């Protein structure tokens, strides 16, 4: 496109110059996931059972609720970056791509907000009697 008009240059014809941050965020959240999901799996193996009393007491502790919230943020951030690449690679129609990316963003933000709210509600109010 060379040195086209100002309009031509902003019409998505070139790099947005955000690729490096995307790439790096993907790796940073990957390392975060490595730590946080390992924590979750080890914590699950540590639990004596998965009865209601056991898991409610477990999730209400600050040392569990906080990493759980961090994990949800980190995972859904990683999901957004990863599935964005899948959509960009496999959905070629511009309209469908825009729709798919919109749904992806709604999904990750909505799901993360729901999960964080549920953990926080449980940790703050305790198990319903």
């Amino acid at each position, binding site marked *: 496109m060379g040195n086209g008009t100002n309009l031509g240059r902003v019409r998505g014809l070139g790099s947005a110059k955000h690729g490096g941050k995307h790439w790096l965020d993907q790796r940073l959240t990957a390392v975060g996931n490595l730590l946080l999901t390992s924590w979750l799996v080890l914590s699950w193996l540590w639990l004596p059972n998965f009865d*209601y009393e056991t898991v409610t007491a477990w*999730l209400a502790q600050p040392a569990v609720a906080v990493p759980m919230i961090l994990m949800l943020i980190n995972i859904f951030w990683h999901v957004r970056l990863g599935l964005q690449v899948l959509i960009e690679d496999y959905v070629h129609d511009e309209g469908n791509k825009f729709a798919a990316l919109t749904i992806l963003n709604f999904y990750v933000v909505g*799901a993360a907000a*729901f999960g964080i709210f549920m*953990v926080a509600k*449980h940790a703050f109010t305790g198990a*319903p009697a």
Partner: protein
Amino acid sequence: MAQNPNRPVSPHLQIYRWGPHMAVSIFHRVTGFVLATAGMLTLLWWIAAIAGGPESYATFQSYVVSAGAEASGTQVAINWLFRLVGLAVLYSFFQHLFSGIRHLLMDLGAGYELKTNRTWSIAVFIAALTATALVAMLVASRFMGA
């Protein structure tokens, strides 16, 4: 414009011979999608069930774990469906984990030699399948009364 069949064609997916490094790459994407959807939705359901009280936790368990001794045929079928999904998510977790570690190591600049790359790719599959089998057996022995 008709293509001259005598012209050389640029090699594409259907011309390349499949190798473990290609398989591990596409599996990384597929397993990532499985974890992002089935894996995370089930995890969120579990968290919401804990926060929702004993009845909602019992509902979660009746669908995902077991509907109990007096379960109807449909309930047993749903339980087995979730066990299959659980197995798929479990395998996806380990495949994505080990494949992800491979990617992080390659980002450091290591493992691009043809033989090393091939070995690491095969190692990812073996490690993921082994870990899946071990955890599945552990879960089955603890929770399915085997």
